[in-house]
């Protein structure tokens, strides 16, 4: 075995490029998976992070369902004999610039001595003593470009509030993006006297709490909080996981390609080893050992890269998590051994599985020195390949089309990708031969001809390349297509000429009634939103005709629906809500209202991309009655023709300087900006997969250029000039890149289709119309060709520099 290890070591040392490529493939794939997995954890923990900082990982939270908690409960509990250490918390979200921070007001004196967070005496003094004092983590300060001592203005509870940052927590990642304040100051500044959001209690106090809590309060433990963060962010997380697994798949294709390539090169040696008495078992162990060492090292590198990557991804996911789900994430990941271990094992397993066919092929190499065709190569005969490809494709399509579960769609997509991987070498070589036919006798034609004949060597690389390119283009197309859909939707939704909000938050009924009297305003729409828990939104609308036209009905709708909507005989729901709850037109839906439940049939399902948890819409008059809430969040103004906008704005400003008007184009721009922030992370993943593709491409092409020295030497000996040979190499590398790029086009189309038509509805609950944004192609294809050209330059230069005699000697 020692000798055998020596044998593989020598071989790999002689092919450092291939070795590096295999390592890079695994590392890049694992990095993407690790990055996304750690980032997912940040999302999951974001509801819980603050609790962990305050009272440990397993705390219990005392809440008043559907409303704030009376602070007197805290005093009552805390002074009862045997009381656990309780921490009163008032939470709200604060916007600083375009950043959303979680504002946690606590009683710093209630932090228990054994708890995870203690404030120093001076810090406590500062928090309690001065009214506008807030603390945050050092990292958050750095991220926001602030320093201790800075005064900042944040927007919270609909008002602009000035705060002073007096101190920073050095180490505490859980407190990233959080502002810690004293409860008294926060209640005062927010105008929420007497209110708590919840009370934190240590996990072991459950029994005591059960015995002492008054009726009507609930205890939420950390698991329940994680579950609810999980449900809230499910769409985003599954989507990202799917994409990261695709990244890993591409990485594995790269690994497979490399190992297959190495096998082709090693066939002779393996045959010889077998001839001198190496058994299949030994050979198998050797090759599995090689794979494990390679994969293990690559996976470790990947974990390290991934941890770094996750921190970057968290930065990208921060904005959408806050905007879509109200979750404030920490800015750094908190990796654990189980996560690392699991990914490591996954990588080893997947790498071993991906090399199974290579291993099988190696074991089939018969003993003896051989150079007869296809000896030891397990090449599938054409009919077998046809059957395999079509059954993979059919199985994949069946899984995608007929299953409602996202997991099956992903499996189906993977099967389709496998089919593509099997098909890609054949199609690619056909393409190359087809190009050759344009000018079969020219240098380029012959170079391509030679390339086209080397299917066995280049097949796996071609498959890996076209998949990687296709994936990144496909993901990009999905995002662009989705953006078009969102743009259309916003365009349709925003009917009013301008929208009014108040800088101090909610709009009282007086302003609405006043505006309704103005002659220059034809009609008013309005919205009031309320969180029904778990991210489900209740929207109360005033819907004059044009506003009603803004709904695009997926089901139901129409005049009868409007009648029911106006009278409270029916509600309309957003598509994600209908899909998550499997609601049909006519089915009743319950809305929890204080002290009762409002129930009405669904009369329409409308297109909506605002919330993936879903929205229930009722008419504002019904809402006011049910919730005893006269306020509105914003008002849409439908203006009469020929209105002088400046005069109107002036008149509005006269009414109150708190009025903020935003015209529809600005609203649309802001909506799309939110969308773009949301999909920045998807872009990042597309780019990552693209980078893996580029690594694969360049390495494969370099290998192509460098590993065929003997062939090139022969051509030089036979009389091909240096320049001719350089062109020859570059034509080949560019040809291969071009073939991969062309194959990537249908693959990207398939991925775009599956992601848009199958994954989006299942992950988020909304459907997206299929559009054909070809932008990614226009970027990727030239990029691939350029990469092909560039990747040819080095070997071409290197080969052309040498005398043919040296090349013949060096390569023999």
């Amino acid at each position: 075995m020692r000798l055998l290890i020596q044998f593989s070591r020598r071989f790999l040392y002689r092919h450092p490029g291939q070795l590096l490529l295999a390592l890079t493939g695994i590392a890049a794939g694992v990095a993407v998976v690790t990055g996304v997995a750690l980032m997912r954890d940040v999302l999951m923990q974001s509801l819980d992070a603050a609790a962990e900082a305050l009272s440990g990982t397993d705390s219990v939270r005392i809440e008043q369902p559907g409303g704030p908690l009376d602070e007197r409960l805290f005093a009552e509990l805390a002074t009862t004999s045997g009381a656990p250490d309780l921490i009163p918390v008032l939470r709200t979200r604060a916007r600083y610039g375009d950043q959303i921070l979680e504002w946690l007001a606590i009683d710093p004196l209630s932090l228990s001595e054994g708890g995870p967070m203690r404030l120093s005496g001076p810090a406590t003094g500062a928090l309690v003593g001065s009214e506008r004092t807030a603390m945050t983590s050092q990292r958050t300060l750095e991220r926001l470009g602030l320093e201790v001592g800075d005064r900042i203005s944040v927007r919270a509870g609909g008002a602009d509030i000035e705060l002073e940052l007096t101190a920073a927590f050095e180490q505490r990642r859980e407190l990233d993006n959080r502002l810690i304040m004293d409860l008294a100051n926060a209640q005062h500044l927010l105008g929420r006297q007497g209110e708590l959001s919840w009370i934190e209690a240590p996990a072991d106090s459950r029994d005591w709490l059960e015995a002492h809590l008054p009726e009507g309060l609930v205890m939420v433990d950390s698991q329940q909080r994680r579950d609810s963060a999980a449900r809230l962010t499910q769409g985003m997380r599954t989507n990202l996981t799917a994409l990261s697994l695709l990244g890993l798949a591409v990485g594995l294709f790269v690994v497979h390609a490399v190992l297959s390539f190495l096998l082709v090169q090693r066939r002779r040696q393996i045959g010889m080893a077998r001839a001198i008495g190496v058994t299949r078992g030994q050979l198998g162990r050797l090759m599995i050992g090689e794979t494990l060492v390679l994969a293990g090292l690559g996976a470790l590198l990947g974990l390290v890269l991934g941890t770094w990557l996750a921190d970057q991804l968290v930065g990208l996911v921060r904005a959408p998590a806050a905007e879509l789900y109200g979750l404030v994430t920490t800015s750094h990941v908190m990796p654990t051994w189980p996560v690392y271990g699991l990914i490591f094992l996954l990588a080893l397993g997947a790498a071993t599985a991906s090399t199974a066919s290579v291993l099988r092929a190696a074991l089939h190499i018969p003993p003896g020195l051989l150079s007869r065709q296809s000896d030891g190569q397990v090449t599938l005969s054409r009919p077998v390949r046809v059957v395999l490809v079509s059954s993979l494709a059919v199985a994949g399509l069946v899984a995608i089309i007929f299953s409602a579960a996202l997991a099956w769609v992903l499996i189906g997509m993977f099967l389709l990708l496998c089919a593509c991987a099997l098909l890609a070498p054949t199609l690619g070589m056909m393409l190359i031969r087809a190009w050759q036919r344009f000018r079969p006798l020219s240098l380029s034609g012959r170079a391509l001809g030679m390339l086209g004949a080397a299917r066995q060597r280049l097949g796996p690389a071609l498959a890996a390349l076209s998949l990687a390119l296709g994936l990144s283009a496909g993901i990009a197309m999905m995002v662009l297509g989705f953006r078009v859909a969102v743009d259309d939707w916003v365009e349709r939704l925003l009917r009013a000429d301008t929208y009014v909000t108040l800088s101090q938050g909610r709009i009282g009924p007086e302003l609405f009634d006043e505006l309704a009297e103005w002659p220059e305003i034809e009609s008013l729409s309005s919205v009031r939103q309320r969180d029904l828990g778990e991210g489900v939104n209740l929207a109360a609308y005033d819907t004059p005709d044009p506003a009603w036209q803004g709904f695009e009905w997926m089901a139901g709708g129409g005049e009868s629906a409007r009648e029911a909507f106006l009278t409270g005989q029916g509600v309309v729901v957003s598509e994600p809500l209908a899909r998550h709850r499997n609601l049909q037109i006519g089915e009743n839906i319950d809305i929890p209202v204080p002290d009762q439940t409002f129930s009405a049939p669904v009369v329409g399902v409308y297109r909506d991309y605002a919330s993936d948890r879903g929205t229930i819409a009722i008419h504002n008059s019904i809402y006011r009655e049910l919730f005893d809430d006269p306020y509105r969040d914003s008002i849409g103004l439908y203006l009469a023709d020929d209105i002088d906008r400046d005069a109107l704005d002036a008149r509005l400003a006269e009414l109150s300087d708190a009025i903020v008007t935003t015209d529809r184009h600005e609203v649309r721009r802001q909506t799309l900006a939110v969308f773009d922030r949301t999909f920045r992370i998807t872009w990042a993943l597309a780019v990552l997969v693209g980078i893996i593709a580029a690594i694969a491409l360049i390495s494969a092409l370099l290998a192509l250029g460098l590993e065929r020295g003997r062939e090139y030497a022969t051509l030089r000996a036979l009389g091909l000039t240096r320049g001719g040979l350089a062109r020859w190499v570059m034509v080949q590398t560019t040809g291969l890149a071009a073939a991969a790029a062309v194959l990537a086009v249908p693959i990207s189309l398939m991925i775009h289709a599956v992601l848009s038509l199958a994954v989006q509805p299942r992950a988020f609950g909304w459907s997206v119309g299929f559009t054909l944004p070809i932008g990614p192609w226009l970027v990727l294809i030239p990029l691939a060709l350029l990469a092909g050209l560039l990747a040819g330059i080095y070997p071409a230069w290197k080969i052309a520099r040498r005398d043919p005699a040296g090349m013949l000697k060096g390569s023999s």
Partner: protein
Amino acid sequence: MGTSSERVLALDDVSRRFRTGSETVGVLEGLTLSLERGQRLAIMGASGSGKTTLLHLAAGMDRPDSGRVELAGQDLASLPEPDITHLRARHVGLVFQDFNLIDSLSVRENIELPLWLNGLAIDRDRLDALVGLLGIERLMARLPESLSGGEKQRVAIARALIHQPDLLLADEPTGSLDQSTAETVLELFDRVARETGATLLMVTHNNEAARLCERTLHLRHGVLHAD
């Protein structure tokens, strides 16, 4: 091109040294040699005596450290690299010890390579004749990796002669072949060389091979001896 007495190849006081580590080893020392059209010369020598280097110099695939190489009447030292390559493509046919067929090209494409490199049209009659002579008609569509050693060398010979070179350079053409195959190939080589009237410079350590040639020189320690 010239008359029958034309000198096809001349090496004049040619030396070639290689560096191995810090040492400079002289492989060829002041070697002089001349070959007229139609002549056949064998150069024999032990392994490492510089035979292959001599051949590479003759083909313009390597440059001497001193001395002068003249191929087809042209002094190679005065030519830029592309011209040397063109000269080689046009005037030289090469047969290697280990064939050096291009794996991804078929036998036919391999044989036609020199024609393409010289921009010559395919002379079907000549191709058929050559192929017939070498007995490789049924191999034309196959890929080199499916051929036996003898078959490969026959293809290589066809490739070396297809464009009617003035000079055929053969480097140990039977080195990779077993005894009986080697004999067959040599026989063919002899016949083809005679029938095409090729000028031949062959380096070998095989007496049988050397016997094909009218003249045999021995290369010892970088110097030619006539015995």
